[in-house]
């Protein structure tokens, strides 16, 4: 006031702080609620959880911030370049005096932007293979239980139940969820994973995820990535029916089957009971018809064959002829066999030497040996005698020694003779035994002793009881001829045959005679 002239008159003077706070107040007052349309850019989520970004258009840009608590509630996921409409207020930060938009909510700017975002997401998930045809599971023919994920209120669950009961009433397990709004996506994901985690005894055989029609925004939970992934991961075959026929959400690509409407989903889930009943009845009718036809065919065949079976007497004739023929053969064969044996016996007896002759030969050999021994002894004796005589001259009683030696020599000679004689005897006995055995082995001789030989119809001798079966024709050869016989089977007890029964038979015979 002293020197400075009042050039600027009455303009009040602010401190910086005063101005900054005044600006803040003005801005916040004037722009306490604004909607700004622009493109998201330079998105940064700070470690504190707050999101910083810039919203721009062709000519301008404005800083924007979204506090952590609001970030979680945003209905869309902020992405770089996304065209959005942000709702919020303008505020400044006095320390720097730059202003920014505090974002409270965010929506996509127009259907075009939303569709573009969905298209991008779809492409990305498809590239991961989430929608691949080989991931699709086959629906069961007739599930025992059906799991339904939808709102417990409204027409959807009613429509599904109505159509199911029309076609094939089933046990339905409803997992209630909200089908729109901020929490819908999380609830739907939990229901999907919850159904898959149920123990097998109560797990549904098929799932239906359904929602009625709505705006594109209403259907957004069914486009959320976590829901699409949960549908793709679902181990139970799943049918989706979201919105009207013309709406397609991303879960429809990930599910095993897409139904145009909830009612359509119920139709796909179960077959028609009445159709099945008709099928079963038709099959059963065919079964009965076919089975009766089979029986009557076989009966007919049996009758034809029976007629062709013919007269049993004729069959018998043929066989009786055969028996006669074989009987003749048998006789011839037996004769040939006997002749053959006889010839062999003759040959054998020729080769059998007279035991008397053999004995004589051996005796002669023995005599010769005895002579040689005798001579040997005699020579030896003579020599020894001479030696002894020589020695005797030197000895006192040579004569006595010589006599003793002579006695011993005589003894030895006798022993030798005894041994030889015994040996002769053994050989003679052997020979006689052999001769007798030969005799016994003769076929005719055996017959002579009362034995018989049994032949079968082919003329082969039967040597074992096992070779005889009941009813078999036998030919028995006796000493004085042959006789035919029929085997009765096993041998009866010998005692009863020879004893009582024979007596009884005799009595019976006598009875008859009397």
């Amino acid at each position, binding site marked *: 006031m002293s020197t400075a002239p009042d050039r600027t008159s009455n303009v009040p003077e602010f401190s910086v702080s005063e101005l900054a706070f005044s600006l803040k107040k003005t801005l916040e007052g004037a722009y306490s609620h604004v909607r700004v349309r622009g493109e998201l850019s330079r998105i940064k989520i700070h470690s504190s959880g707050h999101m910083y970004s810039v919203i721009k258009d062709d000519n301008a840009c404005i800083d924007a911030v979204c506090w952590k608590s609001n970030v979680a509630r945003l209905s869309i996921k902020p992405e770089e370049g996304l065209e959005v409409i942000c709702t919020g207020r303008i505020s400044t930060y006095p320390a720097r005096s730059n202003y920014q938009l505090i974002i409270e909510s965010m929506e996509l700017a127009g259907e075009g932007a939303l569709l573009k975002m969905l298209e991008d997401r779809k492409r990305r998930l498809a590239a991961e293979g989430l929608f691949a045809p080989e991931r699709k599971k086959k629906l069961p*023919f*007739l599930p025992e239980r059906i799991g339904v994920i939808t709102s*417990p*209120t409204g027409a959807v*669950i*009613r429509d599904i*139940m109505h159509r*199911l*009961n029309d076609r*094939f*009433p*089933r*046990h*339905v*397990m*409803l*997992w*209630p969820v909200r089908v729109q709004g901020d929490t819908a996506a999380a609830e739907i994901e*939990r*229901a999907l994973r*919850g159904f898959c985690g*149920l123990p097998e005894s109560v797990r549904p055989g098929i799932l239906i995820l359904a929602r009625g029609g709505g705006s594109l925004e209403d259907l957004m939970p069914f486009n959320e990535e976590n829901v699409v992934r949960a549908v793709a991961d679902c181990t139970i075959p799943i049918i989706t029916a979201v919105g009207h026929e013309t709406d397609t959400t991303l879960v429809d690509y990930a599910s095993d089957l897409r139904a145009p409407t909830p009612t359509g989903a119920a139709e796909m889930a179960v077959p028609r*009971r009445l159709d*099945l*009943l008709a*099928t*079963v*009845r038709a*099959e*059963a009718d*065919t*079964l009965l018809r*076919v*089975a009766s*036809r*089979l029986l009557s*065919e*076989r009966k007919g065949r049996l009758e034809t064959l029976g007629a062709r079976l013919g007269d049993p007497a004729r069959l018998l004739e043929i066989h009786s002829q055969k028996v006669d023929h074989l009987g003749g053969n048998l006789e011839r064969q037996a004769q040939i066999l006997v002749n053959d044996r006889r010839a062999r016996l003759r040959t054998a007896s020729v080769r059998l030497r007279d035991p008397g002759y053999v004995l004589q030969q051996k005796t002669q050999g023995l005599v010769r040996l005895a002579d040689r021994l005798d001579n040997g002894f005699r020579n030896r004796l003579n020599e020894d005698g001479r030696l002894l005589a020589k020695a005797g001259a030197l000895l006192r009683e040579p004569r006595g020694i010589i006599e003793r030696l002579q006695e011993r020599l005589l003894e030895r000679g006798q022993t030798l003779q005894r041994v030889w004689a015994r040996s002769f005897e053994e050989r003679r006995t052997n020979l006689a035994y052999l001769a007798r055995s030969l005799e016994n082995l003769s076929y005719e001789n055996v017959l002579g002793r009362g034995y018989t030989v049994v032949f079968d119809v082919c003329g082969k001798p039967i040597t074992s009881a096992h070779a005889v079966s009941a009813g078999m024709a036998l030919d028995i050869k006796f000493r004085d001829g042959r006789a035919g016989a029929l085997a009765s089977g096993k041998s009866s007890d010998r005692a009863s045959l020879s004893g009582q029964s024979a007596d009884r038979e005799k009595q019976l015979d006598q009875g008859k005679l009397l």
Partner: protein
Amino acid sequence: MAEQKPIDQLSFEEALQELQSIVSDLETGKAPLEKSISDYERGVALRKHCEKKLHEAQSKIEKITVTEDGRLQTAPFEEE
């Protein structure tokens, strides 16, 4: 048809398929008589089983709720 499951363990679809295959087997008329008869008897039993499965169909609806500690419960569903 090497192994034959007891009929009451068959699902409707399995039973129907077996019935159909028995019918077409019998239609060829090549099976021995004994087998034809036992096939027919099994066919009749399969039919009964199928019809039973179709008749026992019953509608039931229950609601799943998640308790606070994360367990699942079911309750009869009443439309709200």
